[in-house]
C-alpha cells in the first residue's frame, strides 16, 4: 500500500518517451512493426516478450544505437531523429554490463563525467554518491576484473546513474545473475528507481521480473505491442491467449458468445456453464466463438461439505508437489483439456490422492473473456 502511494507521488502524467508508429525493417523482416507507446515521466516501464519480439530493438532505438525505418521517437518532448547516441539524455545498462576492463570501479563510474570537466571535487562527489546508491562504497579502487556478477551490475548501474539521465534504459540487466541474487536485485532496482525518480525502461523476457518491478508493462510479440497496462491488469485481464499464456499458467476454456453489450459479455461454456463477464476494453469479436480463461490459483479446492456459489466438479488425474504449493490436474466432464489448479499446502492439498473426486470453487470475477 505504501509503495503504491509513493509511486503515485513520483509519477506524473507527462510523457517522457513518445514512440510514434515506429517500424524497423531488416530487408523483408520487420523487427518492429508500427509500434506506438507513451512512457510517462518517473515511471518504471517494462518491455516484456519472448526473444525476437522486438523489445531490444525498441530499447536500442531509444538509446540511439539503431534508427527507425519509419516513425519517430521523442524524449522529453525533444525529437530524437538524427541525434547520435552520445548526445541523447538517455543512459543504458547493458546486458553484458560492458564494464571497461582496463579501468577500476571508480574510473568506470567517472567515465562519462570526465568529458564534463567538473570543478571543485564535484566529479569525486558524484562518483561517491553513485557508488553509495548501489551499495558499492569503498570498492572504488577495485579492478573491474575482480568483481562478481552482482557487483559488475551495480557498477554498470552507477556508471549510468551518475550521468543523471532523463531515462535509464536496462537491457535484461538481471538475466546473468543467479535466482536468489536476481530476486534481491529486483527489489533493489525498484527501490532505487523510487529514490532517484528517473524514468526506467526495462527490457526482459522474465514475466515475474516485469510484474514485480514495473508500474506498467508493454507485452510484445513478433514486433507488435500486444498490450500496455499495469502488472495487475496484464496478469488478470490479458487481451489475448498469447499474452495470457506468456504471463504464467492459464486454463483456456472454449466459449460461445450468447450476448454482447457495451460493458459485459454472456458466454456459454461446457464446464462452467453460462457466465457473465466484464467485456475487456480491447475485446474485438471474431465470429461467435471466444475463449474464457482462468488462472490456476483462482480455482480453490472445496473441502468436505463446504459449498460455494460457483463451483465445478472433477477428478484429480495428476498431482505435482512443489513445496509450498501443489499443482493438481483436474479432469472436468465436458472439457476437452483438464484444468490446472494451484493450491497452497496449508490445508493438505498435497494429500489429495490421484483419482479423487473433488469440487472446485471459483469467483466469476476471475474469469477473463478473450477474443479468439
Amino acid at each position, binding site marked *: 500500500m505504501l509503495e503504491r502511494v509513493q509511486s503515485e507521488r513520483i509519477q506524473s502524467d507527462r510523457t517522457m518517451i513518445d514512440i510514434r508508429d515506429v517500424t524497423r525493417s531488416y530487408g523483408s523482416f520487420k523487427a518492429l512493426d508500427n509500434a506506438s507507446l507513451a512512457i510517462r515521466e518517473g515511471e518504471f516501464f517494462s518491455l516484456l516478450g519472448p526473444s525476437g519480439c522486438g523489445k531490444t530493438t525498441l530499447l536500442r532505438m531509444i*538509446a540511439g*544505437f539503431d534508427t527507425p525505418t519509419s516513425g519517430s521517437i521523442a524524449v522529453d518532448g525533444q525529437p530524437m531523429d538524427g541525434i*547520435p*547516441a*552520445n*548526445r541523447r539524455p*538517455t*543512459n*543504458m545498462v*547493458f546486458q*553484458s554490463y*560492458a564494464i*571497461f*576492463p*582496463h*579501468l577500476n570501479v571508480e*574510473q568506470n563510474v567517472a*567515465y*562519462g563525467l570526465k*568529458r*564534463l570537466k567538473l570543478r571543485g571535487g564535484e566529479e569525486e562527489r558524484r562518483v561517491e554518491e553513485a557508488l553509495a546508491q548501489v551499495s558499492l562504497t569503498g570498492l572504488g579502487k577495485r579492478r573491474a576484473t575482480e568483481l562478481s556478477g552482482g557487483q559488475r551490475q551495480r557498477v554498470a548501474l552507477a*556508471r*549510468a546513474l551518475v*550521468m543523471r539521465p532523463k531515462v535509464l534504459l536496462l537491457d535484461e540487466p538481471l538475466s546473468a545473475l543467479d535466482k536468489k541474487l536476481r530476486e534481491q536485485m529486483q527489489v533493489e532496482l525498484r527501490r532505487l528507481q523510487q529514490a532517484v525518480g528517473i524514468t526506467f525502461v526495462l527490457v526482459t523476457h522474465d514475466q515475474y521480473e516485469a510484474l514485480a518491478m514495473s508500474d506498467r508493462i508493454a507485452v510484445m510479440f513478433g514486433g507488435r505491442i500486444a498490450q500496455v497496462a499495469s502488472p495487475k491488469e496484464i496478469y488478470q485481464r490479458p487481451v489475448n491467449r498469447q499474452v495470457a499464456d506468456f504471463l504464467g499458467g492459464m486454463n483456456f476454456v472454449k466459449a460461445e458468445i450468447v450476448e454482447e453489450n457495451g460493458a459485459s459479455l454472456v458466454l456459454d461454456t461446457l464446464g462452467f456453464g453460462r457466465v457473465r463477464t466484464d467485456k475487456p476494453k480491447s475485446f474485438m469479436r471474431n465470429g461467435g466463438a471466444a475463449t474464457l480463461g482462468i488462472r490456476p490459483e483462482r480455482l480453490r479446492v472445496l473441502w468436505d461439505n463446504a459449498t460455494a456459489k460457483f463451483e465445478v466438479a472433477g477428478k484429480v488425474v495428476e498431482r505435482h508437489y512443489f513445496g509450498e504449493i501443489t499443482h493438481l490436474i483436474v479432469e472436468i466432464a465436458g472439457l476437452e483439456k483438464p484444468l490446472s489448479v494451484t493450491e497452497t499446502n496449508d490445508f493438505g492439498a498435497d494429500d489429495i490422492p490421484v483419482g479423487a473426486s473433488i469440487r472446485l470453487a471459483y469467483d466469476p470475477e476471475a474469469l477473463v473473456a478473450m477474443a479468439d
Partner: protein
Amino acid sequence: MTVAAEGSPPLRMAGARRNPLLQSEAVQGFALISPTFVYALILLVLPILVVIAHSFWTQNYLTIDHTFTLENYRIALTEPIYRDLLWRSLYISLTVSLLTVALAYPIAYFISFHGGRHKSLWLFLITIPFWTSYLLRVMSWKVILGYNGVLNSGLMGLGIISEPSDALLYNSTAVIITLTHAWATFAILPIFVSLEKVDRTLVEAATDLGDGPLRSFLRVTLPLSAPGVISAALIVMIPTVGDYVTPKLVGGKDGVMIANAIQAQFGKASNWPLGAALSVTTMIIVSLMAGATVLIIRALQRLAR
C-alpha cells in the same frame, strides 16, 4: 647426510616407479613438447652458446685463441664504425616499426570494424604480396625508387622535378621504405587479432556515456588493442635490426646496417670472435629496446585513462 645418501638410492628407485609425478599432467605436457624442445635446443640454444663462446676468444690468423678476453667487446662498443652502424640499425628498425604500426593500425581497424562478412577475404588479400619471394619485392622497390625508376619518371612527367633524383635509392630512407612495406602484414595481423577481441558493447557503452567516435576510440578501443600494438612493434623491430638483405640491395653505402658488418666479419674479414661479439652486443641491445618499448606503450596506456 652421507649415511642417508648411501642408504636412500634403492628406496628412491622403488619410489620412482610408483611416482605419481610421472603420471601428472605436467610431465605428460613436457613429454609432448620434448621433440620441439630438443629441436629448439640443438638449433637455437646451441648455436647461440657457440656464438657467445666465440665472442670471448681471439682470431689468430687461421686458428682461434681460446684464452678469455673482452677485447672484442671493447672494439664492438668503442670503434666509431661499429658504434655508428649499431645506432643506424637501431634508428632504422625503430623508425620502421613506428611507421609500420602507424600504417598497419588503420588497415587492421578497417578490416576488424568495417570488414563485415568479407573479413577473411580482406586478410587473404593482404597476404597476396607474400606469394612472391622477398628478394623480388625488394628488387621491385629498386625499380620504383631507382634513378630511371617509376617514381623519378612519374615526378618528371608531372613536371615536379626537372631531372631524376638520386636521393631516392641507396640510402637509409630506401631501406626504411622497403622494410615498412615488407613487414606490414606482420603488423596488421596481431593488431587485427587484438581489435577482434575488443567487445563492441564497450564501444557502445562509451558512446552511451557521451563519447564521440574519436574519444571512444582513444579511451576504449586503442587502450584495449595495446597488446596487439606491442606485439606488432616487437615483431617488426626485433628482426629488422638484424636485417641483412634489404640494406645490401637498396641501402647503398649510407644504408649499411650492423648485420652487414657482422656478415663481413664472419666472411671476408674472417674474424669470427669480433663478429660474434657484435652479434651478442646487438642481441642485448635489441632485448633492452624491446623491453623499453613494452614499458613505454604500457605507460602511454596508463596515461590514456
